[in-house]
């Protein structure tokens, strides 16, 4: 009996460690791809003619579209959703319109399905990542 208990507790521990590794790698991957996506959004949403004049404003629709496009591309979201790893992905945006240094604030929330929370009856672990990116215009 003791052997069985030890065996199951060992399996539980292993599952927990694997889950932690998965969660950590996924968190890093999402953070890196969100950073690239916000960078791309800042570059794509500003108009060059405005930057030449020293003022710049963010085109909100274009910025949101770019963040979504490059975030999905870098994280390979189709593969993750097909495997059922990432669920209920939500992206929220807020912008600050300052003429010299506008900024984008992105809030990302998703549910990651891993093994250990399923034993308790939960669906997964929530991942929440926020990112803020500013643009400093240098007019000379």
């Amino acid at each position, binding site marked *: 009996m*003791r*052997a069985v208990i*030890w*065996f199951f507790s*060992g399996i539980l521990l*292993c599952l927990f*460690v*694997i889950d932690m*590794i998965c969660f950590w*790698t996924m968190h*890093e*991957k999402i953070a*890196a*791809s969100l950073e*690239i996506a916000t*960078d*791309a959004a800042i*570059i*794509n949403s500003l108009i*060059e003619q405005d930057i030449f004049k020293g003022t710049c404003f963010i085109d909100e629709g274009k910025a949101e579209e*770019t963040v979504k496009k*490059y975030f999905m*591309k*870098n994280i*390979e979201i189709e593969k993750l959703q097909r495997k059922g790893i990432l669920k209920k992905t939500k992206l929220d945006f807020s912008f600050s319109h300052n003429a010299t240094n506008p900024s984008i604030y992105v809030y990302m929330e998703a549910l990651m399905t891993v093994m250990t929370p399923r034993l308790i009856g939960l669906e997964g672990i929530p991942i929440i990542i926020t990112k803020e990116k500013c643009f400093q215009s240098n007019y000379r």
Partner: protein
Amino acid sequence: MICSLRSKHLYKTKITAALFNERGEELICSIYAMLVFLMILFISIDVIGYTSMGYKLRNVCSQTLALMRMQNGMNSALMDRFQDCALIYGIDISRTEVAATPQYVQRGEEVSIRASTPYKIKCMRPFNQEFSVMIDVEMTGIAEDFIRELQ
């Protein structure tokens, strides 16, 4: 008659004693536990190695991509930088394949880098088998610098 009954009783008690005796359980348990523990350890070492190698390659790629975005594409100096960075992280350069957008692209256009390196799985070594799995990383960003001559 009495003698045979006594022997039967003795026989029964010996079987029950052998079945329910807990002596020596620790020894058997510990041997099996060691076997299971070693199997889990072997597999987990490979899992950790694979994930950490992927993490390292992602790190190198994201750093190179940041430089590529600033310089509007990949050139030979950036390639050297990629290889230096990979050496520091402990990635085998001779087996790493890199494909990236060459210089120059205009501001707002895509620059992408794709790198792949093999990872040797060692947990099958006791069975005299060794195979490698490819780790693929692809990242896409947007070029930042505006170049007047390209217009």
